[in-house]
């Protein structure tokens, strides 16, 4: 699979869109290919990864119950768990395929971007197919010529984890 470059200067206009879309596709590819250590490198050390519950999409992890609220320490632990043969829900790993569309970009500061996109993530395992549908909110910043995620919020559109039983993969 060809690898998109994460590098390259962003000077606005089509270059910006191209760089951001490439970044999202690259992130999806790393996850689909279970290259989780490389995926971790997409995050800043002060990053946050949040997945709210299905009944409270606007949930604030400080005061509401959410599915996932990871700082970088817990995100690394999550990756370790997913790589372990004792992470039973994902051992053996499921097959996944991520589709990302409807990318919208808003420049927050010179080097900070707010990106929303729609996603469909199919997970196949043990004879079952379970699609996760929703939208992403990525907050990206450019540092030393590279885009990094400093906040990722995965908002699910489903009313419940009906076919899924859990959020066992990284969404």
């Amino acid at each position, binding site marked *: 699979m060809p690898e998109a470059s994460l590098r390259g200067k962003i000077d606005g206009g089509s270059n910006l869109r191209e760089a951001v879309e490439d970044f999202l596709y690259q992130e999806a590819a790393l996850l689909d290919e279970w290259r989780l250590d490389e995926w971790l490198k997409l995050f800043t050390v002060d990053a946050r990864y949040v*997945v*709210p*519950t*299905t*009944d*409270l999409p606007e*949930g604030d*992890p*400080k*005061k*509401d*119950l*959410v*599915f*996932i*609220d990871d700082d970088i*320490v*817990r995100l690394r*632990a*999550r990756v*370790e*768990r997913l790589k*372990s043969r*004792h*992470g*039973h*829900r*994902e051992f053996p790993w499921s097959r996944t395929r991520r589709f990302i569309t409807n990318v919208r970009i808003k420049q927050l500061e010179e080097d900070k971007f707010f990106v929303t996109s729609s996603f469909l993530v199919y997970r196949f395992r*043990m004879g*079952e197919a379970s699609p996760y549908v929703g939208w992403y909110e990525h907050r990206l910043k450019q540092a030393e010529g590279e885009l990094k995620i400093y906040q990722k919020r995965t908002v699910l559109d489903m*009313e*419940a*984890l*009906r*076919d*899924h*039983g*859990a*959020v*066992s993969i990284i969404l």
Partner: protein
Amino acid sequence: MVELKGLIRDNPETGIFRVHRSAMTSPEILQLEHERVFNKCWLYLCHESEVENPGDYRRRTVAGRPLFFVRGSDGKLRVFLNTCTHRGALICRRDQGNADALQCFYHAWTFNNQGELIGVPDEAGYGKSFNRGEMGLKSPPRVDNYRGFVFISFNPDVEDLVTYLGDARDYIDLVVDQAEEGMRIISGSNRYFVKANWKLLVENSLDGYHVKPTHKTYFEYVTSLGVKTGAVQTAFSRPARVLGNGHAVEEHDGVRGRPIARWSPLFGEENKEEIARIRARLVEKFGEQRTRLMADISRNLLVYPNLMIIDSIDITVRVFWPITPELMEVTAWQLAPKGEKDELLARRLDNFLTFHGPGGFATPDDVEAIESCQAGYKAEGVEWSELSRGMHREAIAEDELQLRAFWRQWYGYLSGLGKVETRDPVVRERSSVAS
């Protein structure tokens, strides 16, 4: 006709307890469970804090029946069957909200938030026998509240709730007494489906035996945060408890800490002082002994048949309903003291989502485990599940006594025997094993 007699082998002579796996796969048995368990017992509906203000309502399905509960303008919490008394349409069509009145969209009959029918378009179209007063929303036959936990029963003759709860009451008290100003359900709930029989989640939730092998990655994670998990090796050696009526509790040392009064690194340096303050208050109010029970011991409480209150590194309230013999719907909430400090609440929520949440480091593996059991049953050939652990000795928390208690009462209800003795019978070989 289902042959119930062959479903459980409970043999005190040999110390063998087995459950026939058709109990987890048979549609006829699920039908019987609906008639003889879910239509007979008290069932958990909600916590009163979920509808705090007059007019607040939420809808919820209990034992497959659509219900909603609403705090009326008079301040009283009522529960209604979610069906129009006219032609049946759902009255409450949003998951939650606030309203003075709810109108059926089909023919625009309107009910106030106390369930009275207050509006019928062109009422003159009905004859003299039509009595609006009789056409209010219907409630389940029994509704009661024990210290904030609201239960319903579809059985008009069910015993009163306090009697039904039996010794499980004490354990609910241990939870509720933690709060200075009462408890509340935190917003945001976990709703997930598990492709397994509902009784497998009862077993899993009361089972101390699986914790170490199944949740290895979770303990690695908390160890990396500085929790001394060596103590987990002995945490589950407390005596097992059954509470009568099928209720049971699995108690273990709270080695990972407790949001009330037992600090561990999972609660962060910033909360050390607050946790010490809570402990001092508890000691003052309840004395050392009860404080130790409340603060140092974690417990997974089953309120029969399907409510789990997991009073541990957080307080998880979890209920689960069969959809088919091989599929259940689970909902879990977090209960916390009103007025809990923001920093402590944040840690409590962290603890929930890292362990008890379906996006955490433990619950996904429980889901995997019980789905795996259900999948394994398809092999047939092995007809019985083995639940004898600890039957030959004074059972401890990581034995299977609590599971047997559940199953004995389950059999009691299914076979029409009613309440049965759920403790292990005295086993002859016990003395020889102990020596």
